[in-house]
């Protein structure tokens, strides 16, 4: 499937840890496959599950150069990024299932998952909605002198949103420790990139704002990691950057979408751009691992991710008593439930 010439053509990358990158990508791939299973078993809350299969290199490659204390926001297709930043797959799966044990106690779900401990300022169901927060996080990092960066991960579709350009200008103007990572999977729902953007060379837009900007081929996770290393180092010094990771969305926009708007040949070609298979082949080719070792690793990951389903199925939904919690800070009174209010009023009447 993966062409050996392409692997030979890939330059040696002494600074990247390919076995580790492979492991991260394989965990993401398997996690996403299990999310699909959760959905099929009727255990997922939410009709909207967006899988990042085919885009694992963006998450694994970029996050390899983020540090503890760096912050980030993601779009709605953010499971892989969160996992690559160290998320507990059980708590992630439980959140996707709308269970109390999830990262947000079942209130957020797949599109609104977050964990402040890991610097995840939030996934977002609003295209572009999470981007400007990194400007503020970048300001805060500089203000506090932490040396940390803030990263926005978003899709090609978000390049339609004005707020991206407002944010890029601020990042460049104020020399903030920020990186914009655009995961170009060629589609926004059913719309192919060239049907929605006048100039599909997306990083050129960032050049116009004076950002350091480039596009990298998402087939090769090491290329992503190398670009990340460079751009992240620059961002820490106040040179904000924009990275486009070119990849292909293997499946439908959301779980139920069968992609009728693209033909089988295109999908087949697109799925050739498989960063997980490519990394595996490269590991073997370079003698960094043998097939038996990789099979054992894969089996271990399969078992780990299988367990997330069992974990989630065994969890309960949040009790109704939690419904009014967290609208405001815990020390503030909760909003009065409609039912309570009605009883109060009618008792008086």
């Amino acid at each position, binding site marked *: 499937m993966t062409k050996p010439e392409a692997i030979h053509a890939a330059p040696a990358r002494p600074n990247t840890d390919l076995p580790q990158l492979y492991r991260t990508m394989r965990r993401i791939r398997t996690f996403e496959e299990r999310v699909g299973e959760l959905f099929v078993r009727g255990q997922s*809350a*939410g*009709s*909207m599950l967006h899988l990042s299969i085919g885009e694992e290199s963006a998450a694994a490659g970029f996050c390899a150069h983020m540090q503890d204390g760096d912050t980030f926001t993601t779009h709605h297709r953010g499971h892989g990024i969160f996992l690559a930043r160290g998320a507990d797959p059980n708590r992630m799966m439980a959140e996707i299932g*709308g*269970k109390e044990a999830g990262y947000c106690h*079942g*209130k*957020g*779900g*797949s*599109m*609104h998952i977050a964990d402040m401990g890991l610097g995840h300022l939030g996934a*977002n*169901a*609003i*295209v*572009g*909605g999470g981007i400007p927060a990194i400007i503020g996080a970048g300001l805060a990092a500089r203000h506090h002198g932490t040396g940390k960066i803030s990263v926005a991960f978003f899709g090609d*579709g*978000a*390049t*339609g*949103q*004005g707020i991206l350009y407002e944010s890029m200008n601020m990042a460049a103007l104020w020399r903030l420790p920020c990186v914009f990572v655009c995961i170009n999977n060629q589609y*926004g*729902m*059913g*719309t192919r990139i060239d*049907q*929605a*953007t006048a100039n599909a060379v997306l990083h050129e837009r960032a050049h116009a704002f004076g950002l350091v900007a480039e596009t990298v081929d998402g087939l090769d996770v090491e290329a992503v990691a190398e670009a990340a290393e460079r751009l992240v180092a620059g961002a820490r010094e106040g040179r904000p950057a924009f990275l486009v990771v070119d990849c292909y969305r293997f499946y439908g926009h959301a779980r139920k979408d069968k992609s009728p*708007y693209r033909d089988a040949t295109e999908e087949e070609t697109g799925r050739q751009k498989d960063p997980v298979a490519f990394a595996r082949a490269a590991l073997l080719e370079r003698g960094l691992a043998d097939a038996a070792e990789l099979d054992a690793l894969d089996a271990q990951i399969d078992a780990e991710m299988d367990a997330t389903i069992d974990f989630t199925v065994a969890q309960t*939904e*949040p009790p*109704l008593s*939690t*419904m*009014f919690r967290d*609208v405001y800070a815990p020390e503030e009174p909760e*909003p*009065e*439930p*409609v*039912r309570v209010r*009605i*009883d109060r*009023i*009618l008792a008086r*009447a």
Partner: protein
Amino acid sequence: MALQELTYRDALRQALIDSMRENPDVIIMGEEVGRYGGAYAVTKELIKEFGAERVIDTPISEPAIIGAAVGAAMAGLRPVAELMYVDFIGMTMDQLGNQAAKIRYMFGGQIGVPMVLRTQGGTGRSAGAQHSQSLEAYVMHTPGLRLAMPATVSDAYHLLRMALTKPDPVVFIEHKALYTMKETVDLDAEPLAWGKSAVRREGKDLVIVTYSRQLHYVMEAAKKLSADGIEATVIDLRTLNPLDFDTIREHVERAGRAMVVSESVMTAGVAAELSARITEECFDYLEDPVVRVAGEDIPISVSTALETGSVPGPQLILETARKLLGARVAA
């Protein structure tokens, strides 16, 4: 034409088709409206008949979609701008609230903005806090915008057809949980006028005012109340602006009790406005406070248990009506 069975979705789609056939200036623009056929399939295959010049797929650029519709309307087209989820209305609020709504007035009546913003809202798909809201109050709070919210298949058709003949901007909010609802309808039958509410049921004991999906919950509750010997009048607003208060007044004066049911959050919402008007205008006729049964003042969770708990359902409506009438009905 004869009776036919249609879904809410089919009816909306038919209204667009009929309006586009009738008026070559009607265009549709929005995300995924063309090749994809609409996120909820309302514009399915319209691009085949009307072409990409009239069914325009846009980038994901909500403020510009609505703003472009404003300009198109001023320049002689009849745009239908589709906003995939009403939750995105905040992004477009300048174009809608400062531009579309005020142009006629600011410019001294020189020109109107005859556009339709089609969108959908509400709970029911476990879509979480940013894809499940009922934001009609934002629209109703903005003078200059008309607001239609069909609850039935027949109204889905007729209100959209009528919206496309109106001189001012109409925000047309569908309910995502109603798209597959079926009804046997005769689309050629004379519809109730634009701006008139529909009395879906008459009863002497109390008036329940509602709109959109909650109508169906109210009707379900009213049926159970009837078995208890309590007869409710149910008013479906159909359009919230214009608001047909005359019908409400007439029935509230007769029954002396009123409840307002809305899926949007209670505080400063549509139910608050209706309840205030009823209290002010029908004060002498009321035997009890006007009660609001509305969405909780909280965001919507992805957890289905919390999602359903956040908005009124038949049970809460039924219990509230029973409490409202209490022993006093017998007296």
